[in-house]
């Protein structure tokens, strides 16, 4: 046996102990590789760029940033888990040193072991990535709405980058960890792992403090959101309160609850409760810090991901341009009729059925923009809304021009009257109602859109200038516009032959819904891809760490199970005890995180006028699904180990 064989045997013969560590490392390599696969894809740039320059920038930036995040993340998690591996092996190191292993040899041993695992994990991660790269690319091009799909390619660059990044990472980890075991006296190492665990203790006051801090934190966040105190310091205070409270929740309150349950004898001595609770008290105390970290990071992640997806979604949800194609004509545009005809011709050629309507807008001053009743009715008809009538000349109604306005109008109605006092003109209109739908593409430039009778419209002054504009809108409603990608392309090149992404200032502008929709979908997809993959890696590490903790306790557990089975614990009861314990270990931190982020969302909801709930639910559900899978796998393995000890 040579020295490196010693290291090799340590790992191979302890493979169950290293399994979770190995697979989670391999998994994070796989995720990194997936990003690299995308980042270096020869077509990705052009495919994304075809929709927009910013999108391709967002794409590459997003992927790069997540790669960096992923590596930093993996570094700390692997460091943490290797560190605790080493601690459980104190006795082994003590024996080796007793037989003359020098510090240098010890560092070499740890280094070699880590590098072996690191290399194996990197290779495995990349191999799996290569094997499934075709599938991965197909999935991603669907997620990112890339029409032509991403073709398969030989990702030499991706492989090299991934290998290089993780080799560096594992070398660093090996260097750091090999210096982590401090050897003052051998006796400390030799006795190291034998220390009996003290009965878990918790203080009533600190447990109460946990509840108080979290409560106070929630209140503070709400007072920020409801505008009682509008300062970032208040928000930060709230967050800090909750974080500290969460710390005590896991280190004190959870243990305290277990102790309190123990005192309830009628409950405690009922069947397997005794086992479940007394074991849980230890496990909660042992893993309190891990649970704390998982809960806080998950809460932050849920909130961040939810907010991101909501914003990404906003493009889609609020993109309330009802027209597949919109043509704006400003003052001095001589080709309006020609262009309108051209659009119709092209649409006809492409066999796309459409309904067209146009409206002239007149800015009259006092933040008021006017539209003719007949134009409004044309547009409403094209969009399939009800038409309106005005019985008197001084009657008018308002039309929302943004989702925000739509909500305000429907909540509080419009003001009774609008007055126009511009120069010599003094006019007043009685507002009879507010239209329930927008008929124009969302336009924040219009402060209030008022529809008046055709005859009054002509009498209105035109004050086209800064702060308001008069122009004509041609809207084309197409029922299945998401399939009109080809004709959209042709029209874009017709109007903007030089650069179809450049909506330059001019006498007219042409907007198509299709590219905007693709862009929103891609932005959303990228954000989701980036955040969910990182989130999944985080959960993998956390789960593997729990597994490792269970595994290091296995001898004690097995002895206990052997003893219990001798005095008549059935298999079913064992299942029950283990399932309950693991359920709490796996889901308590996440439930706490969900509650925290739930509070954050309700607070956030007060600040913004779009719904953040729906997109978040999807994200939360997918994380829960991942966690359930890990729960099942680890429960299965752990039970198998314990059942071996049953007699």
């Amino acid at each position: 046996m040579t020295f490196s064989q010693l290291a090799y045997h340590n790992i191979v013969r302890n493979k169950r102990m290293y399994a979770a560590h190995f697979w989670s490392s391999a998994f994070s390599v796989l995720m990194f590789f997936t990003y690299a696969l995308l980042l270096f894809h020869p077509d990705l740039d052009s495919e994304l760029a075809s929709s927009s320059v910013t999108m391709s920038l967002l794409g590459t930036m997003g992927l790069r940033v997540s790669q960096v995040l992923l590596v930093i993340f993996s570094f700390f998690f692997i460091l943490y888990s290797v560190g605790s591996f080493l601690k459980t092996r104190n006795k082994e190191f003590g024996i080796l040193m007793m037989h003359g292993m020098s510090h240098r040899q010890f560092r070499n041993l740890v280094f070699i072991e880590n590098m072996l695992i690191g290399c194996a994990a990197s290779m495995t991660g990349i191999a799996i990535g290569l094997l499934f790269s075709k599938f991965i690319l197909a999935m991603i091009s669907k997620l990112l709405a890339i029409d032509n799909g991403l073709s398969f390619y030989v990702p030499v660059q991706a492989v090299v980058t991934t290998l290089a990044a993780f080799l560096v990472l594992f070398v660093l980890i090996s260097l750091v960890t090999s210096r982590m075991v401090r050897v003052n006296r051998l006796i400390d190492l030799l006795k190291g792992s034998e220390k009996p665990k003290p009965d878990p203790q918790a203080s009533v006051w600190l447990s109460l403090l946990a509840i108080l801090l979290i409560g106070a934190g929630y209140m503070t966040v709400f007072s920020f959101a409801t505008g009682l105190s509008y300062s970032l310091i208040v928000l930060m205070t709230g967050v800090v309160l909750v974080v500290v409270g969460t710390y005590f929740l896991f280190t004190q309150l959870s243990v305290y609850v277990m102790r309190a349950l123990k005192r309830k004898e009628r409950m405690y001595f009922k069947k397997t409760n005794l086992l479940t609770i007394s074991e849980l008290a230890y496990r909660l105390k042992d893993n309190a810090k891990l649970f704390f970290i998982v809960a806080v990071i998950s809460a932050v992640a849920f909130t961040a991901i939810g907010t991101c997806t909501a914003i990404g979604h906003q493009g889609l949800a609020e993109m309330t341009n009802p027209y597949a194609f919109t043509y704006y004509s400003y003052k001095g545009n001589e080709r309006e009729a020609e262009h309108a005809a051209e659009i119709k011709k092209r649409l006809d050629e492409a066999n796309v059925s459409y309904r067209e309507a146009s409206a002239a807008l007149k800015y009259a001053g006092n933040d008021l923009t006017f539209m003719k009743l007949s134009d409004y009715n044309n547009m409403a008809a094209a969009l399939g809304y009800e038409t309106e009538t005005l019985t008197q000349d001084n009657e008018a109604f308002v039309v929302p021009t943004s989702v925000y306005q739509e909500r305000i109008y429907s909540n509080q109605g419009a003001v009774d009257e609008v007055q126009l006092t511009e120069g010599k003109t003094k006019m007043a209109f009685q507002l009879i109602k507010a239209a329930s739908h927008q008929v124009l593409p969302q336009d924040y430039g219009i402060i209030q859109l008022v529809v008046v009778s055709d005859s009054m419209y002509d009498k209105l002054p035109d004050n086209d200038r800064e702060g308001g504009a008069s122009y004509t809108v041609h809207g084309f409603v197409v029922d299945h516009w998401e399939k009109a990608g080809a004709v959209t392309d042709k029209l874009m090149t017709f109007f903007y032959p030089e650069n179809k992404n450049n909506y330059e200032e001019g006498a007219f502008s042409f907007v198509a819904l299709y590219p905007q929709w693709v862009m929103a979908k891609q932005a959303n997809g990228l954000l989701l891809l980036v955040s969910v993959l990182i989130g999944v890696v985080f959960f993998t590490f956390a789960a593997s760490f729990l597994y490792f903790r269970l595994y290091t306790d296995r001898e004690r557990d097995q002895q206990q199970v052997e003893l219990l089975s001798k005095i008549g614990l059935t298999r079913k009861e064992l299942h029950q005890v283990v399932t309950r314990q693991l359920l709490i270990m796996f889901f308590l931190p996440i439930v706490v995180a969900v509650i925290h982020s739930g509070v954050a969302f309700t607070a956030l909801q007060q600040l913004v006028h779009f719904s953040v709930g729906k997109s978040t639910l999807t994200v939360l559900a997918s994380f829960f699904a991942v966690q359930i899978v890990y729960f099942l796998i680890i429960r299965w393995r752990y039970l198998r180990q314990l059942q071996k000890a049953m007699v």
Partner: protein
Amino acid sequence: MSMVEIKDISKTYAGKISYEALSHINVSIAEGEFVGIMGPSGSGKTTLMNMIATIDAPTSGEVLIHGSNPFHLSSEKLAIFRRRELGFVFQAFNLLGTLTVKENIVLPLTLDGVSVEELNRKVEAIAEKLGITTILHKRTYEISGGQAQRAAIARAIIHRPKLLLADEPTGNLDSKASRDVMETMSKLNKEDGTTMMLVTHDAMAASYCDRVVFIKDGRLHHEISRSDNQHIFMRNIMDVLSVLGGNRDDLFTVGLS
């Protein structure tokens, strides 16, 4: 010059109730000497061995080996000292679970970078002597307590140390195997001139020593040297033990052998 010089060492275990496990012990062991240490359970024998084996440091006093304090060596030199000159048999065997019996035995040689051929040759020889040839390729959880003990002894002597410290190496063995182990050790002592310290509860095993030191409650109690006859020596040891007290197990073992 003496090989081991124990100079006025005391050891107090700190804790809620601090406990003085050793108190002002002075022992000197000459080069090539074979010294037995006996005493009731809990009297501080393992503690004393740990001090000599550089596993633990005394609270006061010092242990000199070859006239110098090993704790003053650089960590690299201390490692080399442990690897080449020191052999230690733990009371609890302390075999490594991830290794086979053979791999456990060759550990000191592996750490010293000895060639595989030489290493194999030495393992064969020593396994033969201790009767564990058949279990060399088993893992440690597949062997009996006595076999594990012999493997631990093999590991402590394979590199022919200058100083061998053995904490109850025959505790789990039957009298035949005990005798074999003691013969092997005695031979090593005679042929190689290895200095040895042996902790034991067994008067038969102790009778192989040149001298037996008795401790009780952490203090030196008595010391007897061997005359020519091993049998007479054994009688003497048993006499002291009966005066010393100790638990029934000790007397029982003595009675058997």
